[in-house]
């Protein structure tokens, strides 16, 4: 019989050595014998090769990492994620505050300097504020001299600093005139910004300087965003509708 066909289950039994050569189907007796021989013992390696290979194995095992990498990797990954998350949170916080110009002068300038290295143009305390951040410009109303003397040109307490400076000044006024002078300064717009930029005022209480505060954002009225700031995550007081809207009539 020519071995042209073989039932699958018979083939499986042949492969597994479950059919003795004498019991194999016609034409497959020698195949069964061949497979039986293939399972037979092979000449063992010489002792020198055994020793050399086992020594190499022992050396490799000794230098292999004992702790499974599966367990260690997630822990390192978690620590990395926590650190990265913390750093991102700090950057977001200070970036948002810096973008709003709400940081103390030293911090504001420091953050602005750092941000400038990555292409972000954040406002500074000093002469450059208002020229980058708001297209309307001049929103603080503080003179450059006041900004230099107080260092808080964009801070809401600028007016207080101005009054305080007048109160402590004894060179120009004296006696009853001094009180009057201080009072005049207090009533004046010295140190006051032309528009309040605190978020709560803009959003919650309304501000006379804002015409669109209770209206849906109108993109036609949006100030142009400073370079890079559009990439910052939105934060209170930083949305296009309520932050830095020009109030010039």
């Amino acid at each position, binding site marked *: 019989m*020519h*071995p*042209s066909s*073989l039932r*699958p289950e018979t*083939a*499986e039994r*042949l*492969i*597994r*050595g479950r059919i003795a050569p004498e019991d194999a189907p016609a*034409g*497959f007796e*020698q*195949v069964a014998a*061949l*497979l039986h*021989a*293939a*399972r*037979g*013992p*092979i*000449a*063992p*390696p*010489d002792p020198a*090769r*055994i020793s*050399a*290979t*086992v*020594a*190499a*194995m*022992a050396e*490799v*095992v*000794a230098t*292999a*990492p*004992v702790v*499974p*990498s*599966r367990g260690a990797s997630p822990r390192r990954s978690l620590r990395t994620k926590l650190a990265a998350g913390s750093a991102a949170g700090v950057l977001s916080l200070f970036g948002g505050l810096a973008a709003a110009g709400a940081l103390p002068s030293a911090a504001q300038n420091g953050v602005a300097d750092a941000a400038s290295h990555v292409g972000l143009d954040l406002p500074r305390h000093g002469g450059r504020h208002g020229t980058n951040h708001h297209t309307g410009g001049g929103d603080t109303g503080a003179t450059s001299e006041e900004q230099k003397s107080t260092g808080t040109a964009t801070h809401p307490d600028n007016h207080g600093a101005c009054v305080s400076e007048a109160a402590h000044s004894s060179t120009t006024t004296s006696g009853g005139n001094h009180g009057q002078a201080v009072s005049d300064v207090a009533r004046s717009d010295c140190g006051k910004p032309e528009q309040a930029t605190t978020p709560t005022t803009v959003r919650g209480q309304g501000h006379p300087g804002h015409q669109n505060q209770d209206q849906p954002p109108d993109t036609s009225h949006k100030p142009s965003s400073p370079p890079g700031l559009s990439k910052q995550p939105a934060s209170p007081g930083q949305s296009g509708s309520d932050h830095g809207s020009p109030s010039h009539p």
Partner: protein
Amino acid sequence: MALGERFDEILAAAQKGAPWALEAIYREFQPGVLAFMRARAGGEAEDLAADVFVAAAEGLPRFEGGEAGFRSWLYTIAYRKVGQLRRRQGRRKTEPAPIGDVVEHVAPGDAEADAMTALATEAALARIAALPPAQAEVVLLRVVADLSVDEVAAIVGKRPAAVRALQHRALLRLARTRIENPEDPGSEP
């Protein structure tokens, strides 16, 4: 023969680098791996078989599983070693070790009967090695390594049905070849 119930103990000791345990593993699995390599890698079989065990030692501390899983893992390494050898050698056909070399591998002092048995084994491996590569690998992994269809399928990256088809065609081919060349165990089909 298998390590059986002692496998877990031996594996645990081997994972800590105990030489006696590593040697036990080597002695248990080396003949099959060498047979596989002898059929697939020809004259480089001895060195490649040793490479398989050294490579296995690298992953040994992290291995988890029983003896069957270990055997399958070991032959996965062996299969990949053969693939690497083939890539190094291009598409050159691997040549089984000459039958005359078998005498060199017979340990001194073996009885003539053992030598003849080893010779028969070598001859049988040579016959299987002469099959088309995919068929030869499937038959070797199933017969020499004593792996299941599913285990072989996982190693060679084929579906179990494809493995069954390959082994079926291999048996038919071996049968025809034996009939056509009954006196020549190492003849090409």
